[in-house]
């Protein structure tokens, strides 16, 4: 199968800014602008960015939990943005999401069994109660929990356990694509590693394709095959994990790498600390959106939006300057 599982082209999402007693639209926030990438089967694409980068919006748009304002999302040859309600429901059997917040993602008044059975009921999988119970038991097993969790309520579980339930629920419909939106950010460090190991194991066993969204570049480097770095709704750099983290070409990527605080970091030199703060997303800078914080910005950066340049067949970035040359001087 050579065609990619998922192909996103020129994805766009605008939010209207409304002000006034009788709400009027006074402006737009471009949460996502002109984002394009592909995802192959059994591959993990990491999307890395900070607040305001639009990474969560990208993930949500792919599943149409947020309606995109423009662009194409082609899954298995079909354009998701044009799906009818019925097609959308079927799509939701193939594409699922793991949320960031394990505390809010589970209805506190439902038992674990009910929570895990819900997708089965909604999608018409496993028609009888016994069948559903068996499947729920299998799901619990898959995420490393015992069946006596079935009767418990989410409030009795720890953060890590809840997140396992969130993962189990996403897998209940046996999807091909899983969007994991900051799946470990709300957990303790020691539990984060547990859940990442679990996700990795499940990905291999079930042959999942994943989009892993995170602000933590070190985690993404570990987990993802390819990485896309986003800033203010645009992709700054995209390539394999080794390329993006080992030979970054975009100043923002370099800054993100510098910002990772690794106690055993080999080279402390070559760090970039960005100046200033994130610009107002409702009024982004002209030309390259990153230029206001970029240590290498020149006049030309304000004049046009940089196109993606290929550094190799798999590696591309959006910067008009050659950072490698600048930094080696």
């Amino acid at each position, binding site marked *: 199968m050579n065609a990619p599982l998922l192909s996103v082209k020129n994805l766009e999402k605008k939010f209207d800014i409304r002000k006034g007693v009788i709400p009027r639209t006074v402006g737009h926030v471009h949460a996502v602008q002109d984002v394009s990438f592909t995802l192959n089967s059994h591959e993990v694409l990491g999307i890395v960015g900070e607040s305001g980068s639009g990474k969560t919006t990208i993930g949500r748009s792919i599943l149409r939990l947020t309606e995109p304002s423009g662009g194409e999302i082609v899954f298995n040859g079909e354009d998701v943005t044009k799906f009818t309600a019925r097609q959308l429901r079927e799509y939701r059997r193939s594409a699922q999401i793991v949320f960031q917040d394990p505390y809010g993602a589970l209805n506190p008044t439902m038992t674990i069994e009910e929570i895990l059975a819900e997708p089965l009921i909604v999608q018409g999988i496993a028609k009888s109660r016994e069948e559903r119970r068996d499947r729920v038991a299998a799901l619990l097993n898959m995420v490393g929990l015992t069946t006596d969790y079935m009767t418990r309520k989410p409030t009795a579980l720890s953060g890590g356990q809840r997140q396992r339930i969130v993962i189990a629920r996403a897998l209940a419909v046996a999807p091909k694509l899983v969007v994991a939106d900051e799946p470990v950010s709300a957990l*303790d*460090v*020691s539990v984060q590693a547990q859940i990442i190991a679990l996700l990795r194991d499940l990905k291999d066993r079930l042959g999942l394709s994943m989009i892993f969204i995170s602000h933590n570049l*070190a985690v993404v480097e*570990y987990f993802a095959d390819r990485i896309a770095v986003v800033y203010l709704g645009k992709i700054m750099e995209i390539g394999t994990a080794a390329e993006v983290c*080992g030979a970054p070409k975009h100043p923002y990527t370099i800054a993100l790498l510098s910002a990772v*605080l690794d106690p055993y970091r080999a080279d402390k030199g070559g760090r970039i600390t960005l100046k200033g*703060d994130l610009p107002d997303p409702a009024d982004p800078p002209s030309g390259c959106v990153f230029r206001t914080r970029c240590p290498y910005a020149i006049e030309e950066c304000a004049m046009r939006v940089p196109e993606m340049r290929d550094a190799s067949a798999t590696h591309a970035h959006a910067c008009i300057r050659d950072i490698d040359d600048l930094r080696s001087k």
Partner: protein
Amino acid sequence: MTDADTKIQPLKVEGGSPATETLLDLRNLSVRYDAGGYGVHAVRDVNLTLKRGEVVALVGESGSGKSTIGHALMGLLRFDRNVKVDGAARLVCKDGVTRDLLAINDREMQRIRGNDVSIIFQEPMSSLNPLHTIGHQVSEAILAHKRISRREARERALYFLRHLGLSNPAQAMDRHPHQLSGGMRQRVMIAMALSCDANLLIADEATTALDATVQAQIIELLQALQKESRMTILFITHDLGVVAEMADRAVVLYAGQIVELAPTASLFRNPLMPYTQALIDAIPRLGSSRMPGYELRGIPGRAPSALDAVTGCSFHPRCPRAIDACKTDMPALEAAGLSRLVRCLRWKELEQEDRSERAAAFR
């Protein structure tokens, strides 16, 4: 970053300053919560001494007690009737008097806060009043502890904001908190915390809620300020990366107790307590994509909450190197070399094992 305006004092620690002088001494600090007949220990028997000019990190995950210690020192636990704090936290104040933060009355605590101890919290949005401008709030913070005119306070506020790298401080002064970004708000918090020349700064997860690049900026800023003023910082965090970056010494907490204490470099070079080792291993290493065979290892199970009664060593249920004795005997905190303490029955033999393993790895 020098300011030509000589009227305003540069940031400096007042009152004697050899680096070996003790500033804060915690003795037998314990915090117990009484709720409906249950007594649970959030913090058990913590002893720690902070010297002037040093940066000490309290590291731990949830249930470790690190935040509770911070709250106890800030005097935030005195309002809760169900909380019982034992032990002493003696602070050498600027006027030369040594006071026990846990024993003084509310009014004295009020005077000390801001003057001798300043605090930065995780969520600047909840610490700043949304109704007042930044300029107003920073000035108020200054005026609370210094007898100067309002205009002088405003000038001083402006000075601090500029000093902290706010790109347009005059404009920021007239803005309200919600109009600023997270990084800017945190900088305002730092400005407020620093404006009173306190000797001790407690930073409670001060960078946790910030983006990575902003965190890097704030840490750089704090390092520069600390070097300049030689103030003592007690940094409470769960992030070992931040510890490695900022702290001179690290205090690792687990289940309300100190389990390891060491200078930061030694801690990372040679962790002695299995929990510390496991915690370090749980952080994904940069460059993992180019390290074939690298596997991220978590710690099975979960951190005990204060409610879980564990006999013996509190870490034994999750410890990869526990033996039977660990289940029954609670280890005491032992000295382990230069300025190091460890709470583990097996630390000596484990160190030996690891050393010989590492030697074997070097073919």
